[in-house]
């Protein structure tokens, strides 16, 4: 646990290196540059510590760096307070879909994670919570059997321990390679939340870029309070599918956090740097009076 931050820092470096190689072929991070990350928008190099202190928001241009699940957890919870649950749940290939095992393995190597969701018990601003985070770097944060199971178990733990629940979503939606099993995870997580809801427990859902498809249409939109990071893409159907169906241009700002707020679908839109204090405040509002 003590090395959690260092460990995850190393992992981030490794990940960023590979990710960047894929994303921006011309840009290679060599070893002396490791402490610095280049903002993809303003192209300035920023020291990792400064970036972390600024909630992974570029201090120069305000760009949000994409966060891994562990970045996010490190950012939100009290130092060394995170106890991971169900780390070793592995995907199988329920449809015998060609190439799926390899795809999962590639993503495991790329991210250093077993799957696209990291969950556990931690402290946020002095409050013990169940917290889970989807990692959009792992197969787009898509929900297959493992993600659905881990989300469900986290909700069940939250009910059993009578703890508030915080889930941070970022997902392309369904894990296509798991077909109908992926679809059923929407039902499974919603069923667990029905029990959570009946138990009178607090569920805060934080939507980050991007939250779409089967994740938005299940646990992500069922928070007692739903917060979105500003500028995030949030929606059910993909933009291309909508365009092909209606054959019209989509309005400016369609399916953004601000669009959802305007249409009454979420409670609050926040700058990423304001998220942690707001979660602390909302947890305090729902804390049992001792």
């Amino acid at each position, binding site marked *: 646990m003590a090395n959690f931050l260092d460990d995850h820092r190393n992992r981030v470096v490794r990940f960023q290196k590979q990710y960047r190689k894929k994303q921006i072929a011309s840009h290679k991070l060599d070893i002396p540059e490791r402490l610095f990350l280049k903002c993809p928008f303003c192209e300035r190099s920023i020291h990792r510590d400064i970036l972390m202190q600024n909630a992974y928001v570029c201090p120069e241009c305000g760009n949000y760096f994409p966060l891994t699940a562990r970045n996010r957890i490190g950012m939100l919870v009290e130092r060394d307070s995170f106890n991971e649950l169900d780390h070793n749940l592995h995907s199988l290939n329920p449809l015998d879909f060609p190439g799926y095992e390899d795809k999962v393995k590639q993503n495991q190597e790329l991210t250093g994670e077993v799957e696209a969701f990291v969950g556990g018990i931690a402290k946020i601003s002095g409050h013990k919570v169940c917290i889970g985070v989807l990692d959009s770097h792992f197969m787009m944060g898509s929900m297959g059997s493992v993600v659905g199971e881990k989300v469900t178990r986290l909700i069940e733990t939250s009910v059993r321990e009578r703890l508030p629940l915080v889930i941070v979503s970022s997902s392309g939606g369904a894990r296509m390679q798991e077909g*109908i099993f992926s679809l059923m995870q929407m039902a499974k997580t919603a*069923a667990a939340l029905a029990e959570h809801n*009946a138990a009178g427990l607090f569920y805060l859902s934080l939507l980050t870029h991007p939250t779409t498809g089967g994740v938005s249409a299940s646990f992500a939109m069922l928070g007692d309070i739903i917060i979105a990071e500003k500028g995030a893409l949030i929606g059910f159907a993909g933009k291309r599918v909508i365009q092909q169906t209606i054959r019209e241009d989509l309005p400016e700002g369609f399916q953004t956090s601000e669009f959802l707020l305007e249409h009454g679908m979420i409670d609050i839109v926040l700058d990423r740097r304001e998220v942690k204090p707001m979660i602390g405040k909302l947890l305090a509002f729902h804390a049992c009076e001792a």
Partner: protein
Amino acid sequence: MTANSRAWDKVQLARNPKRPTAKSVVAALAPDFVELKGDRLFSNDYAIIGGIGTIADRRFTIIAEEKGTNLEERIKNHFGMPHPEGYRKVMRLVRQAEKFHRPVLFLIDTPGAYPGIDAEARGQAEAIASSLRFLFTVKVPLIAAVLSEGGSGGALAIGIADHLIMLENATYSILSPEGFAAILYKDASLAPQIADTMKLTAQDLEQFGIADEIIAEPGGGWHLDNDAPIISLKRSVLAELKQLERLDSETLLKKRTAKFRAFGKYQEGNN
């Protein structure tokens, strides 16, 4: 991956324009059906029919996705693709069913929830999510049947049930084969070849334990003889209701949750 797959034949049968749609099934099952419209919030979604009817001697709330039977109707019904107000109407009518202790029959036939600007603005994701969570709390028996096409969250949102029936040539999947091929192979025209890999037939779903029962269709498809599958469906629904009515509401909900809780394949521990 050259020949069209067997599953694709079923996809074509399920989409055959001569295949009966939900409306005619409702009329045959419950001749006294009264349609009840509207979500009381925004509008009435024609993609979903809801109302009350008597099947044999039992009163049901019946909710059915309806694609339409001619072009005019299909356009009005958005080809059976519900908007959020459709799912909100479902929740209203199921709540009403619960109040009057009526069991609910869902008839599923949709390519998926409608992908559009208005649907997103009015909260398609929220409507589906809320319907899913809500149906796990409903204390009357819920029986669902996939008549033809069970597409994605649009089908699942009315597919939370104690018993799921599928017609022999019905399909139930995460996405249409075209959408699936477009996402995974960047080419929607590969749909006929990849449909098998999706495992979307009633037989696949029964093997997975997701579908509980399959209703036989006449050789060549339901459109060749409309009556026989409806008679079987009626018999199944009534028999299942008898079973479900033996359970107290607490057991009913526990069993419903446990059924869905078990879906998913994964491995625990280091691999």
